[in-house]
């Protein structure tokens, strides 16, 4: 019953976010600040993780090719497919649920605990629009860092494959180009945009409606990470069935 009530509250929150907009001059600076915090601030960790995960995918694929009849270009092919279809959009989003999601929940939750949200509401400010809308707009830039994660992941696979002696550069590049379906990239970006909305709104929901003190802010951040991850995984399944099934 509580879950249903929470889903209802979440839907009402999303509706409220788009009501009574804050002055554009103020909103513009809030959006730029959020882009810096949520997008630019996440670039480093995503590049780092993408590079090494790409490398691991390439090595594991190569180590599992035991038969002579399986072509060596499969290393590049498998790396490309894994990175573009799943790793970059989904795995990165789970990481972002931890990094960005807990930041959003704890920052909004702290504002709730210290009555800063009450202060906004008393002034007549639509606190949800002021706090959540800039995050949603900033997260529209999320596909750009996922595109970078795709490039870096594949590059990591190439480095590990070629310099680790698992594949030649020519074989790897041949695998990358083999049966390339551009819709897979479109599918990946559609997922990314949906996940971006989830990453901005679910942690905001947990922060905005939290009750209690500092301890509860920590609990809310953990709950927010769990639920953001769960929703991303469920939506990943549904979108894959709808778009590729």
């Amino acid at each position, binding site marked *: 019953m509580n879950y249903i009530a929470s889903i209802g509250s979440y839907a009402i929150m999303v509706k409220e976010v788009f009501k*009574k907009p*804050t*002055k554009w*001059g*103020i909103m513009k600076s809030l959006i730029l600040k959020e882009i810096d915090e949520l997008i630019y601030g996440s670039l480093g960790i995503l590049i780092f993780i993408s590079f090494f995960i790409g490398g691991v995918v390439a090595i594991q694929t190569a180590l599992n090719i035991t038969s002579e009849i399986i072509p060596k270009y499969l290393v590049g092919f498998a790396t490309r497919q894994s990175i573009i279809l799943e790793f970059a959009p989904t795995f990165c989003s789970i990481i972002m649920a931890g990094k960005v999601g807990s930041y959003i929940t704890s920052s909004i939750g*702290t504002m709730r605990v*210290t*009555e*800063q949200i*009450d*202060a906004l*509401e*008393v*002034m*007549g*400010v639509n606190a949800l629009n002021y706090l959540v809308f800039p995050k949603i707009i900033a997260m529209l830039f999320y596909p750009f860092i996922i595109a970078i994660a795709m490039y870096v992941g594949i590059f990591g696979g190439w480095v590990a494959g070629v310099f680790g002696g698992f594949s030649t550069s020519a074989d790897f590049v041949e695998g990358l180009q083999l049966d390339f379906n551009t819709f897979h990239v479109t599918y990946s970006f559609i997922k990314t945009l949906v996940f971006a909305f989830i990453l901005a709104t679910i942690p905001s929901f947990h922060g905005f409606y939290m009750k209690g003190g500092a301890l509860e802010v920590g609990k809310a951040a953990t709950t927010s990470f769990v639920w953001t991850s769960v929703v991303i995984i469920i939506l990943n399944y549904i979108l894959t069935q709808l778009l590729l099934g």
Partner: protein
Amino acid sequence: MIEVDNIHKSFGDAHVLKGITTRFDKGKTNLIIGQSGSGKTVFIKCLLGLFTPEEGTISYDGKIYSELSGSEQRNLRQEMGMVFQGSALFDSMTVEGNVRFPLEMFTKQSVSEMQDRVDFVLKRVNLIDAHHKYPSEISGGMQKRVAIARAIVMNPKYLFCDEPNSGLDPKTAILIDNLIQEITQEYNITTVINSHDMNSVMEIGEQIIFLKNGIKEWEGTNKEIFKTDNKAVTNFVYSSELFKKVRQMYIEERN
């Protein structure tokens, strides 16, 4: 003037406010006092429109809050200033940014007009050199002053303060009390202060209501509170040894 008529507020099974009726006059410092858990904070949040009472009405200079449209309620809120217990300053903004915030949100003033207004109210609350400091870099007393400056920057008709003295030393607490009273009289504001600080009651309690278990138990002034025979009030007011002695001296003097 704020008129409260028979308001009730519950949270689940807990009936917190049980039919409070009172009036807060313009140009006076109106105090709500009572023990922790008596419903003071819920009452002030109802006055602010943050909680909606299940029964009863609250009217602001004749305008009944619950009968106003959403936009009218928001406009009315812009006429309210609030000083929160923990100051509730925006951490990411400087002192100046905090005070300028309502002006940026709701007025079309030029940058220089806003700056003049910010400088004026910060000077009014005796904060001169803290413009570019962040809330974490200033003392609790200074934070309270910034919160007062932010609350009055839009020239509010109604000023609400939730335990403005909590966490302050007695000297700073008196300074904050006096500042609130001066501002109330200077700008002819309807000020409602939520407090359990007896110094505030004695210093600035022009009109006091005493809450007990969500009921208005007593109403009067800081002069009348000395003379009352209401047991709940005397138990609350004279709970400290100091005030017991003050009352004893008062009775001896009267006899």
